[in-house]
């Protein structure tokens, strides 16, 4: 498309993108400014848009602010790490089955996979709550961790689309060399899936790191809360008589945002350059 654009169009592109970027970025700049504000500024609500104060110690203070922020972070990690590992690999295995192996009942199962994407989690929320209550898992992290270990439909669908673009000749060659189905998966398919594995890992990370609804349902004790829920509790508790400690809330928000940014930074080349999304045609 570039070739059809004159310099005028080019300038217009930069102008539009710069304006849009500025608008989208502004809230985050403001968050940083609030996070770096002194308590005095917070109490008088006299924040400026660009940071004028640099209270970096807020990032240390938040850990001693009466909230177990360190504990929150640890809890979030306990949710995210197993989810990333098991979700990514179980989805890969399942998608390999759907992409490459034939069996009676396969088509029906795949239709079920696709239709589960339409089920609102809320239809399942009450029975799942009963299930976990029966298991004695309420007020533990297990109801949030365990369901995220098993392949989910969205990831299976995405990965299956990706595998279908890998030439089957590779499998056939490997089979002639004596590899079984799992050997082919392990040695041929899995290494070629790295971009989509990375993408699913990023999606799983960001979905679980900020997970709010599950913890809201299941967690009562403050020291068992993940960061997202802890932050909400912090902002809701303090909105009574005194001003909420907005600088601390925004420091907390930044701590919640930062790991997602770091993970994204390292995975972004897979997200754009693998062209894997183009393969997810054929949602039918």
């Amino acid at each position, binding site marked *: *498309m*570039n*070739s*059809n654009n004159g310099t005028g169009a*080019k300038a217009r592109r*930069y102008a539009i*993108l710069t304006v849009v*970027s500025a608008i*989208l970025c502004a*809230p*985050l700049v*403001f968050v940083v400014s609030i996070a770096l504000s002194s308590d005095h500024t917070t109490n008088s609500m006299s924040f400026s848009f660009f940071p004028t104060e640099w209270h970096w110690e807020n990032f240390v203070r938040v850990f001693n602010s009466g909230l177990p922020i360190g504990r929150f972070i640890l809890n979030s990690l306990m949710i995210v790490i197993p989810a990333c590992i098991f979700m990514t690999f179980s*989805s890969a295995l*399942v998608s390999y*089955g*759907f992409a490459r*192996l*034939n*069996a009676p009942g396969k088509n029906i*199962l*795949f239709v079920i996979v696709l239709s*589960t*994407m339409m*089920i*609102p989690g*809320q*239809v*399942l*929320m*009450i*029975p*799942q709550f009963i*299930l976990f209550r029966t298991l004695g898992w309420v007020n533990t992290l297990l109801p949030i961790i365990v*369901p995220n270990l*098993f392949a989910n*439909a969205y990831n*299976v669908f995405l990965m299956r689309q990706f595998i279908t673009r890998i030439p089957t000749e590779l499998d056939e060659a490997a089979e002639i060399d004596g590899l079984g189905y799992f050997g082919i*998966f392990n040695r041929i398919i899995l290494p070629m899936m790295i971009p989509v594995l990375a993408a699913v890992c990023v999606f799983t990370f960001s979905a679980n790191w*900020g997970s*709010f*609804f599950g913890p809201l*349902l299941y967690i009562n004790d403050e020291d068992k809360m993940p960061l997202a*829920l802890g*932050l909400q509790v912090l*902002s809701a508790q303090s909105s009574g008589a005194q001003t909420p400690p907005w600088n601390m809330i*925004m420091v907390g*928000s930044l701590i919640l*945002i930062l790991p*997602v940014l770091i993970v*994204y930074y390292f995975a972004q080349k897979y*997200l754009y350059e*693998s*062209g*894997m*999304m*183009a393969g997810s*045609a*054929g*949602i*039918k």
Partner: protein
Amino acid sequence: MSSATAVSKPRKKRKGMTRKTREALAFYACVSPWIFGFVVFTAVPMFASLFLSFTDWDSFQTPNWVGIQNYVKAFTDDPLFWKVLGHTFYYAIVSVPLSLLIALYLSNLLARDFKGKRIYRTIIYLPSLVPLVSAGLIFKWLLKPEDGPIDAVLSIFGIHGPAWLLDANWVIPAIIMLSLWQVGGGTILLISAINGVPKELYEAAELDGAGHYRTFWNITFPMITPILFFNLVTGIIGAFQVFDQVYIMTAGGPDNASQMMVPYIYNSAFKDFHMGYASALAWILFVIIMVISGAVLKSSDAWVFYESEVKK
């Protein structure tokens, strides 16, 4: 989903049979993690919730069968239900198409090569990486009436901004604003889709002397319809399931002006302990999402272009 060959099977099935069985076994071994998760966390809970929706269960006593009473109550005897349903539709109908159009426009500006593409892409994607809890808190602050930053910006232009989250007419547009802030997620999917369009097609279009708009409408657009469609379906499903934003920014207020289906279901179940009624509401929502997704799915034959179908 390539179907097995329909041609009559060759005589020699000695090896074929075992191979087929072996393959089937391997298939079921591979998909077993999904089957386990599906049965335990989806299928059984679904039947349980369907059952509960016909009871008066309050989460403590044994449930009594009340037939379709919960469904009748929702449609005829709960004025809040229609209000909440209306808000949910309002949110979905405005935010989904708007997000899609903006994502389509931005992805066209951001695709292919140009200087600084990485920076622009990152900035535009950045907000969608912000967890909804943080985003909700940030917007709650930005939208503060009078001295909030958004009203402050508006006042520069001489506009007296509304009280946003406290104003029944502006609270849903405010929540929609948050969804537009996170338009980057859909945008990156479209960027990779555009980058996946074979370059030869553009070269051919250029040789034919096609202009910018014709190239877009005749090549880019049809080639990325599968991803647009994917964004549309997941967008609709997501919009009808909005929860975090509402819970954090307004808790459904003021006076239920921003209450939506899922927070309403949550309240019915875990605040009022009307588990049976909440289950019925969840099923109504499920059917609505199914019907709309089904309609969109059906329409896809008319406008979604699959390369594989042409090759056939």
